[in-house]
């Protein structure tokens, strides 16, 4: 089942923070995050495998709440380069990944 992402779109000014959420009605065993810039392929950001796990990558970090079946991506002090569409993914049966519909992030100068 496809994870649900919220919000669908976010508009920020440079330096502002944003949170993107990913939730599932089924049990989540892992969550991965990707960013896709306009016209390009998605790029893997990070994966969270354990409940309570938190990871960071520059000023982008994520948390995973296994009990609540959700993950959140935090973008701190956003930069223009953060613009793009962010997807969360969860592993379904076998080796396939099911992606959320994506959250569009626009960072303005």
């Amino acid at each position, binding site marked *: 089942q496809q994870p649900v992402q919220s919000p669908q779109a976010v508009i920020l000014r440079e330096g502002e923070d944003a949170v993107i959420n990913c939730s599932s009605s089924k049990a989540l065993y*892992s969550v*991965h995050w*990707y960013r896709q810039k306009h016209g*390009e*392929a*998605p*790029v*893997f950001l990070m*994966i969270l*495998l354990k409940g309570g796990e938190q990871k960071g990558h520059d000023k982008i970090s994520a948390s995973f709440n296994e009990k609540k079946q959700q993950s959140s991506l935090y973008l701190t002090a956003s930069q223009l380069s953060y613009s793009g569409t962010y*997807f969360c*993914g969860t*592993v379904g049966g*076998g*080796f*396939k*990944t*099911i*992606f*959320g*519909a*994506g959250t569009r992030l626009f960072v303005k100068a």
Partner: protein
Amino acid sequence: SQTIHQWPATLVQPVGSPLSLECTVEGTSNPNLYWYRQAAGRGLQLLFYSVGIGQISSEVPQNLSASRPQDRQFILSSKKLLLSDSGFYLCAWSLTGYEQYFGPGTRLTVT
């Protein structure tokens, strides 16, 4: 290091024509391979995935098919394209089934 190639980068084809998109991976062995399609402004739709040579799992019953003739080669085909087949086709590889690494994609326009 691993590299994934896709070609062609762009393609314009008439309705009813055949299709063949190719994806190859370098620098790794026995990867899981995936084909996705992305309509304009939309999410990633998994079309096929493969865990080994000749092993194809289909996620979407359409006029598309996939083959994996070699360990690091994945081909997406169609005998007759439909207008609805237009989109951005992405190939990806993964060793674990978790993090996936995408190729540059093929932008297909069916006219």
